[in-house]
């Protein structure tokens, strides 16, 4: 991305915001450089978890501190940032993080997938195909795919180093034996570039095929666990499965209740207290339904100061 400033990398470039003076992107330059260095290693070894010195962020763990640190270390003045949470630009986590970067960097923000140069995401990959030059930053709660299967951290590191992933197959086997199908619907384990087993973060398995050979750079940050990993552009990503129980994504009987899209990931929304429900696109930018409030003029690129007024569908 464009550098943090034209000056030398370690020279602070402060944002003046009333009585608060923050460095550009909140983190200090030394930390950003350290994170970028770890990211380079992560990109060089696709899917490998790289430890980094995660910092305290002004958000609690579990709110995307890993993703925020990745974004903060990469973002430059020319970048356009989009933040989504469960596909939506208007939910609390997305609004908070977007406002955080608007205040600490003054970069432009957007809700339009194709206009963003950096997209920080929680639990979704946008429906619109990404293009070269874009960076997708995932917020990761638990980077270790073997978590819950092997409790010892030292042992999982050994299993990764020897590429011994039979344990995950045992789990998938057990799902089919007990439930008739692989029950995992999110955080579905993948193997990257034929080597590392990787947690794709809790995205629905619907999004797993989008990881495969994506033209965009995909970075994963886990703040509490202090791990980074990456899927470089055009990297093969395979969702684990058995030959006779192949990987499948979710399908819905109906189309989006707002825009009629039959190809996007749908959320079930309760709309009244009489059991009424509807299915709507989880990706609010993709959803072109009438309930979506959108500024028709300015290509939906927002001023740095604030969050979008209304992005939540009002049925």
């Amino acid at each position, binding site marked *: 991305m464009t550098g943090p400033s034209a000056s030398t990398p370690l020279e602070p470039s402060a944002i003046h915001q009333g009585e608060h003076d923050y460095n550009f992107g909140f983190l200090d330059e030394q930390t950003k450089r350290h994170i970028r260095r770890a990211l380079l290693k992560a990109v060089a070894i696709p899917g490998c978890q790289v430890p980094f010195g995660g910092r305290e962020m002004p958000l609690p763990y579990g709110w995307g501190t890993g993703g925020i640190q990745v974004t903060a270390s990469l973002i430059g003045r020319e970048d356009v940032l989009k933040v989504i949470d469960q596909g939506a630009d208007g939910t609390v986590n997305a609004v908070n993080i977007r406002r955080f970067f608007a205040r600490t960097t003054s970069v432009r923000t957007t809700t339009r997938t194709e206009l963003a140069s950096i997209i920080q995401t929680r639990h979704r990959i946008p429906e619109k195909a990404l293009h070269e030059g874009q960076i997708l930053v995932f917020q990761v709660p638990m980077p270790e795919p073997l978590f819950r299967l092997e409790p010892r951290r030292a042992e999982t590191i050994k299993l990764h180093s020897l590429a011994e992933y039979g344990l995950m*197959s*045992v789990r998938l*086997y057990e799902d089919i034996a007990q439930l008739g199908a692989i029950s995992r619907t999110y955080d579905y384990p993948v193997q990257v570039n034929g080597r590392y087993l990787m947690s794709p973060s809790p995205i629905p398995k619907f999004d797993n095929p989008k990881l495969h050979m994506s033209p965009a750079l995909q970075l994963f940050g886990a703040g509490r666990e202090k791990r980074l990993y990456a899927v470089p552009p055009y990297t093969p990503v395979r969702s684990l499965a058995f030959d006779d129980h192949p990987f499948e994504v979710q399908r819905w009987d109906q189309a989006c209740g707002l825009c009629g899209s039959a190809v996007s990931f749908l959320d079930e929304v309760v709309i009244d207290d009489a059991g009424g429900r509807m299915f709507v696109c989880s990706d609010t930018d993709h959803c072109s339904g009438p309930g979506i409030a959108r500024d028709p003029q300015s290509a939906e690129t927002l001023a740095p100061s604030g969050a979008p007024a209304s992005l939540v569908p009002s049925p």
Partner: protein
Amino acid sequence: MSDDLLLSVRGAGKRYGSRWACRNVSFDLHPGEVLAVVGESGSGKTTLLKLLSMRLALDEGSVHYAARPDGSGPGGLRDLADLSEARQRMLSRTEWGFVDQNPRDGLRMAVSAGANVAERLMVLGAEHYGRLRDEARDWMGRVELAGDRIDDMPSEFSGGMQQRLQIARNLVTRPRLVFMDEPTSGLDVSVQARLLDLLRSLVDDLGLACVVVTHDLAVARLLAHRMLVMKDGAVVESGLTDRVLDDPHHPYTQLLVSSVLMP
């Protein structure tokens, strides 16, 4: 003769602090041969077994194993300490088996019987669910477990059945060498007898070499061709099973043989 060796142990020893748990153990094992290690508790039997199976590192001496040649290295008699960790782990889950005294240590209690049996195949990269199940069912049948219990949890099996399940789990990759740590000691007498029968026929059918640690001389008599008698971490007597049991030389062996209760 040395072409025919499977395992060659020379001066093996393990120390905990300044105390030697076992020391100066040497023996050879040939393919298809069953060796029993007997001795009272605390004599270093289990430590020796763990040394042989690389669950513990040697403090002195060496263990050589005649590995099959494969992609990760040449065959022939190799010092186990020289093998890469990847090769060691591969060996211990393909060419070797390890039957724990307590089946709950050797089994994965949170997954079904079928997954337990098929695990080694999955580690080796098998990716066809139907074939994994066929193989698991087949091996459950061989250890006299009903195939329709393939999806039951190990905790729903009796102790003897768990032990047989553990044996099936180890044999699924057709190992050449199986280490057993007191395989029958947690079981009641009738179950012990059936398990010993089963072990004997499996060892015959598959040509398995075994190192069986036991304190039960009857187990040694039934299964083993040769035996080692250990006391205080050292081998005090070794030889053909019948010879050692019928004509014990060392005073300790004489004591051991004479202290067996006859019903």
